[in-house]
């Protein structure tokens, strides 16, 4: 082994310990290796019991998100050697309960994502014989940024509000709600607004902005939430000033 790098892993084995502990492993320092390659090396050669999630290794599946040196990142897209020669600390993403080692329970997010109805809602479906709902490139561009979300939950890990207020719907779920609101084929904006205009929705957000900083797909959840606040406020003023008009 030419040179090596130390990976300090936050380990939690509930049958053996009450509190997570740090464990160090020496892995080869190879210029082409990502942090995930280092974890795979540990799993294959040093300790097969290390638990973590990964799948695609190309930044689209969203399962290998972890906190590396205090920053939420996709481990498949973070060069290991760039972080050395100091020890590299790998922890599970924050804000979610840890099941084992680097694996967290994301049930809360899945439930919240469902609650904002992230699918196309139509007041009345048109018959199949009339063909598909057409869209221009400009209409696609409206929501494409938010549609890039891969549910990696790095934004939840970066959000101090989500950790402090467990009821907060959170950045990705609101950004995905916005993705459907901005879709020209969708008619569910009002339905979603009923859920998102509650305190646990957009108003919990205090615009720390870190969700957008850590997002690997440039979804800008913070921007989506603030735009939602602007819309909710203008809607409210309209309903007060023009009570006879349609909201």
């Amino acid at each position, binding site marked *: 082994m030419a040179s090596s790098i130390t990976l300090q892993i936050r380990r939690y084995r*509930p049958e053996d310990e009450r509190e997570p502990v740090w464990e160090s492993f020496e892995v080869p320092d190879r210029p082409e290796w990502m942090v995930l390659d280092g974890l795979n090396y540990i799993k294959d050669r040093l300790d097969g019991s290390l638990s973590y999630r990964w799948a695609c290794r190309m930044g689209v599946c969203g399962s290998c998100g972890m906190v590396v040196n205090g920053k939420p990142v996709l481990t498949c897209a973070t060069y290991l050697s760039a972080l050395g020669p100091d020890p590299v600390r790998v922890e599970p993403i924050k804000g979610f309960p840890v099941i084992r080692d680097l694996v967290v329970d994301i049930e809360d997010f899945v439930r919240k994502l469902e609650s904002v109805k992230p699918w196309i809602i139509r007041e009345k479906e048109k018959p199949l014989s009339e063909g598909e709902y057409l869209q221009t490139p400009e209409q696609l561009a409206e929501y494409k940024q938010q549609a890039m979300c891969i549910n990696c939950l790095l934004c939840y890990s970066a959000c101090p509000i989500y950790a402090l207020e467990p009821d907060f719907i959170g950045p990705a779920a609101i950004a995905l709600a916005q993705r459907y609101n901005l879709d020209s084929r969708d008619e569910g904006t009002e339905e979603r607004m009923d859920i998102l205009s509650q305190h646990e929705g957009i108003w919990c957000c205090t615009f720390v902005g870190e969700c957008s900083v850590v997002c690997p797909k440039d979804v800008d959840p913070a*921007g989506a939430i603030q735009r939602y*606040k602007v819309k909710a406020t203008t809607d409210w003023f309209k309903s007060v000033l023009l009570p006879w008009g349609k909201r």
Partner: protein
Amino acid sequence: MSYHSRVDRRWATRRAANPEYEPYHPKWHRKRVPIFWWLERPAYTKFITRELTSLAVGYAAVLLMVQVWVMARGPGAYERFLAILASPAIVTFHAVVFLFLLFHSVTWLNLAPQALVVRLGGRRVADRVVLAGHYVAWLVATAVVAAYLLWGVP
């Protein structure tokens, strides 16, 4: 020894390590948020500073209203109020308030492009332009107020 009794014995030794552990039932670890979470990352500290400096914004607004109220009570009252404001302690305090106001204004304006989508002729205006627009508006407003204070009504 059967497989199951071997497994049970293993669990028994493990339960000694963590009495709360129940075999085959996941035991999640939930981390408490520390009180000083806002010192964990520079971005969090900046956020908390931005939130706290809004108190300075509120104070400045109240001060302005008090000034108007004192002014309505006649020139004598206003002179006395200005004398209080000129005391070194209050001038120092207001210098700090001013710095907080600047910090709040700059960080607040910098966030504007993320919250505002401006469209001109069907096209989205670039974030830099939205940001520049806010700063220009701020400068113009400041210049108007400064001109009024320096030269009065033309």
